[in-house]
């Protein structure tokens, strides 16, 4: 049985007391907490086999290389990639998207081509396309949402034209909580234009639900380690092998070359041609452990746990007058994130007052200004859940909200 209370014991930070009280961490959408096995694994590299990868002919360097590459194998199997070579390690989701944009789109897209992105994207899947559009004379079309925060599937038919080269879409919104139907979206896009690529921002999906990139049949899938119990500073770009072969690196340096002559350089095969310079070795190894930890919990179980928290939260939120949240009301298509507004209280003040009882939430526009503008709100107060979140945590949030109401009444 999935027992969040028991899982909490694996997370050192949740044993910390501030002002004598426990921490209620409701900001996992921004970054997740780290369990002891991940911290230990990262430490293992620093205490047992610190050495550079791919070059030492000695025991510890070979251990480090094996551990580094093993993380790639674990990641590939976790997301259902055809081969580990399709997994490129970057610094974060943003860098993964920029890698795709600079190494593929910047070279192959022509002026007059079109790119589609959605109004619910994180800035990291919005700004690169907007800027690429300016640089290359590419038109960026925006796919809108229904009042309920769902992508408008009927609108997609008109948006994908013969000139559309890319759809950049999130698999789960970091504000609305909406889980988008990626398999269906990819099918519709390929029917309308088989040459249109699909890049999926899975930063809020891979940590929270089973993901299989081959079932999705997308072309690029990107996500971050730090949102799925792993270290900060590690991201993943998955792409179909033939795309990675075609792409030219935009980051040149050590480790990514097989031959260098005065007048020419031969690059390594993917994924290594995209990993220039000494990588974040400890981070990647720690990330591999996070993948193992999540696999042991079971992604189906994690999704079921969060779905249960979502239905509980929706029920509890409805009981508070003046408390509203964006996004769908159906727990089947909603992840554990609630961006809320409260009558007469500013999100900054809500977050500050909740902090007084160690309830940690995020206030602001959550790197999604276009979406907030679309819904006509400047900012929201966001609570988000993960494997260690319990119903008591949601109760603590509600108690905090009631205190805020009292202060500002």
């Amino acid at each position, binding site marked *: 049985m999935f027992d969040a209370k028991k899982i909490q014991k694996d997370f050192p930070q949740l044993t910390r007391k501030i002002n004598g009280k426990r921490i209620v961490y409701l900001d996992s959408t921004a970054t997740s907490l780290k369990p002891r096995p991940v911290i230990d694994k990262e430490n293992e590299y620093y205490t047992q086999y610190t050495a550079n990868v791919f070059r030492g002919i000695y025991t510890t360097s070979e251990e480090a290389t094996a551990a580094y590459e093993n993380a790639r194998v674990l990641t590939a199997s976790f997301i259902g990639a055809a081969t580990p070579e399709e997994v490129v390690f970057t610094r974060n989701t943003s860098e993964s998207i920029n890698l795709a944009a600079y190494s593929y789109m910047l070279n192959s897209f022509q002026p007059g081509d079109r790119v589609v992105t959605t109004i619910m994207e994180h800035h990291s899947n919005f700004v690169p396309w907007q800027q690429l559009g300016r640089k290359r004379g590419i038109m960026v079309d925006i796919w809108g949402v229904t009042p309920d925060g769902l992508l408008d599937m009927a609108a997609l038919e008109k948006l994908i034209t013969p000139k559309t080269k890319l759809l950049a879409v999130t698999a789960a919104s970091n504000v609305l909580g909406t889980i988008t139907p990626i398999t269906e979206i990819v099918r519709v896009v390929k029917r309308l234009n088989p040459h249109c690529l699909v890049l999926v921002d899975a930063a809020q999906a891979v940590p929270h639900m089973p993901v299989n990139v081959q079932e999705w049949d997308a072309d690029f899938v990107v996500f971050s380690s730090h949102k799925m119990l792993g270290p900060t500073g590690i991201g993943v770009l998955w792409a179909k092998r033939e795309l990675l072969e075609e792409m030219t690196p935009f980051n040149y340096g050590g480790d990514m070359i097989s031959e260098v002559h005065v007048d020419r350089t031969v690059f390594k095969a993917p994924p290594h041609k995209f990993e220039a310079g000494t990588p974040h070795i400890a981070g990647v190894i720690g990330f591999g452990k996070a993948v193992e930890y999540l696999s042991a919990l079971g992604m189906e179980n994690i999704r079921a746990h969060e779905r249960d928290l979502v239905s509980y939260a929706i029920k509890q939120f409805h009981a508070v007058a003046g408390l509203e949240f964006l996004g769908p009301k159906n727990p089947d298509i909603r992840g554990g994130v609630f961006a809320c507004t409260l009558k007469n209280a500013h999100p*900054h*003040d809500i977050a*500050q*007052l909740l902090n007084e009882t160690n309830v940690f939430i995020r206030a*602001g*526009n959550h790197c999604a200004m276009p979406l907030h503008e679309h819904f006509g709100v*400047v*900012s929201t107060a966001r609570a988000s859940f993960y494997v260690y979140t319990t119903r008591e945590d949601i109760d603590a949030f509600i108690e905090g909200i009631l205190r805020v109401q009292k202060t500002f009444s």
Partner: protein
Amino acid sequence: MDLYREQILDHYKHPRNFGHLEGAHVMSEEINVSCGDKIAIEIQLSDDKERIADIRFSGEGCAINQASASMLTEEVKGMTIPQVMKLDLPYIEKLLGTTLTPSRVKCALLPLEAIQKAVQSVR
């Protein structure tokens, strides 16, 4: 630290100098990038253009931001431009009667930054 003291809540709920100024000489707008809040300042100068004669602010913000704007606009009326330019964070904290954590400094400083930007444009 009691950030939400009676005085701050009073200024938040009943802001002074809120609104617009007919025939303002200078105006400016500042945005808080962390939350998207905006504040607009409108200022009328004295006849010799050396002092702030009247001032209004508008925009949406958190309690700290709005209380800071409300209190500050009361204080700067009659001040000379060099006096206004000398105001800083410790002054604002004294006005609010509290110290601020780094994440809230911007909220409290935004009105001052807008006022200083406005009067600077006079010179």
